[in-house]
């Protein structure tokens, strides 16, 4: 697994919100077509780190970032690449399903439209994306229905469909199942494992069983630092740091 090429990397990253330092000297690489889980107690900076990768902090004026974020060895904060291009290549699925207040079809079509995908190709891509998210059979007769009428789990799968429709290279997921019931969670986990074939996936999760079920690699963060990272199995069964041991055994968090 370590032979996989590096898809995404953070080098010497520090991040402040105002005067508060939230990320401290983060150095990490994410191999291609691998699911990496980011775990750690609330407030450890895992979501903040995740959001750096598609420049979601650009709009918060009090965020200050130092260090480098590399996608295929290209600096994604470089002037030569726009935030919108970064976000098209690095998709994101959020904690709470945030479907657009539009129809199911338009939810996926919107991203295609603003990224200038030729009009004739769009219906096919929408269908394909819905199939890849295992949503097609449930919604194929109601594509004009407002997306808000779908169940929470269906909405989250629609958000995933919206993301994969753009054929990103990396998909970031910020606790995508935290608002869902176990059945919907199972469906999304199944989907994530399936998506791994084509995408590099980073997933923030509070659920340690989930990390063990779906992640190949796991990164443990604490108070803005990466304490330990490695194969999921070794992190959970043979952690090297005491903090990691205490966390994965549920002593705190």
């Amino acid at each position, binding site marked *: 697994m370590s032979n996989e090429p590096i898809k995404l990397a953070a080098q010497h990253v520090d991040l402040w919100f105002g005067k508060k330092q939230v990320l401290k000297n983060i150095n990490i690489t994410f191999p291609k077509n691998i699911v990496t889980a980011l775990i750690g107690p609330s407030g450890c900076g895992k979501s903040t780190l995740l959001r750096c990768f*598609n420049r*979601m902090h650009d*709009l918060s*004026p009090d965020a200050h970032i130092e260090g480098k974020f590399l996608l295929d060895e290209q600096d994604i904060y470089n002037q030569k690449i726009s*935030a*919108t*291009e970064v*976000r*098209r290549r690095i*998709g*994101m699925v*959020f904690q*709470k399903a*945030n*479907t*657009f*207040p*539009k129809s199911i079809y338009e939810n996926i079509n*919107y*991203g295609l439209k*603003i*990224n200038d995908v030729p009009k004739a190709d769009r219906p096919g891509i929408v269908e394909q994306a819905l199939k890849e998210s295992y949503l097609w059979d449930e919604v194929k007769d109601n594509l004009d229905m*407002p997306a*808000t009428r779908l169940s929470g789990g269906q909405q989250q799968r629609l*958000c995933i469909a*919206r*993301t994969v429709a*753009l054929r990103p290279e990396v998909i970031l997921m910020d606790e995508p199942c935290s608002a869902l019931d176990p059945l919907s969670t199972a469906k999304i986990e199944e989907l994530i494992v399936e998506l791994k074939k084509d995408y590099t996936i980073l997933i923030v999760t509070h659920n340690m069983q989930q990390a063990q079920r779906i992640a190949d690699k796991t990164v443990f963060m604490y108070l803005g630092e990466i304490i330990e990272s490695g194969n999921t199995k070794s992190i959970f069964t043979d952690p090297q740091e005491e903090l990691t041991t205490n966390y994965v055994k549920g002593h705190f968090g």
Partner: protein
Amino acid sequence: MSKKLASILEWGTLLISTGTVCFFLVVIMWDIISKGAASLSWDFITALPTDGMTKGGILPAIIGTVLLTLITALVAAPFGISCAIYLNEYASDNWTTRIIRASIRNLAGVPSIIYGLFGLALFVQGLHMGTSLISAGLTLGLLSLPYIIITTEEALRRIPASTREAALAVGATQLESIRDVVLPSAIPGILTGIVLTLSRAAGETAPILFTGVAFYINNPSGYLNQEFMALPYHLYMLSTQHQAIEQVRPLAYGTALVLIIVVFLLNLSAFYIRYKHSKNE
């Protein structure tokens, strides 16, 4: 026991407060409807006033108020919405922004007669527009601006950050995210704010007093550069300034009823917008 007594007292207070408000509303409505209904007729709303206002209809005043409200909307809505978008979506939270916000809130509290005098100085005299429909419309537009900014900003603030992020995450620019996702979600709130503001503007008298309203013009068509008749001013004149007050009293009540109906129709459309949107959710 004392807890039960307290809850009965609380409940009673709320009930009495609500009852009082409703009571006055019903009394006012009843007074106007019972006395105004008699003068309400097809002729009343389609004819010109005749015989020194003692007979005939109020068509010019209805047209004047409708056109005036329309101009107010055309002036206040685009500027108000744009300003709110800037404040809520682009402006960073620093002291300049805070001063702008505080000023807008203060402007909303400025008495309407001050707007009237300002309109007189700026539009009528300064910009040589004379006492005219356009001067009055611009003045009322200024008066409505702060309300529209405040309600629009409120509507935008209710759209969660995650909605904006959803658009950004599929590669939208900030402008595209506002245009395609944020504004459509906020439209019901924005429209409600605009309609309620306009229904208030439609009933204003003081700002148009110096800027263009006339007691009597003898043609119904409103030209931008001419004086015009308006329902609230017409009502004021009929009920306090007319030489035969007792004789025109029924007409005054009729005018009041028409004004209330116009405002009520505006409010009704705001309700309809909300209802239609909540059904789409």
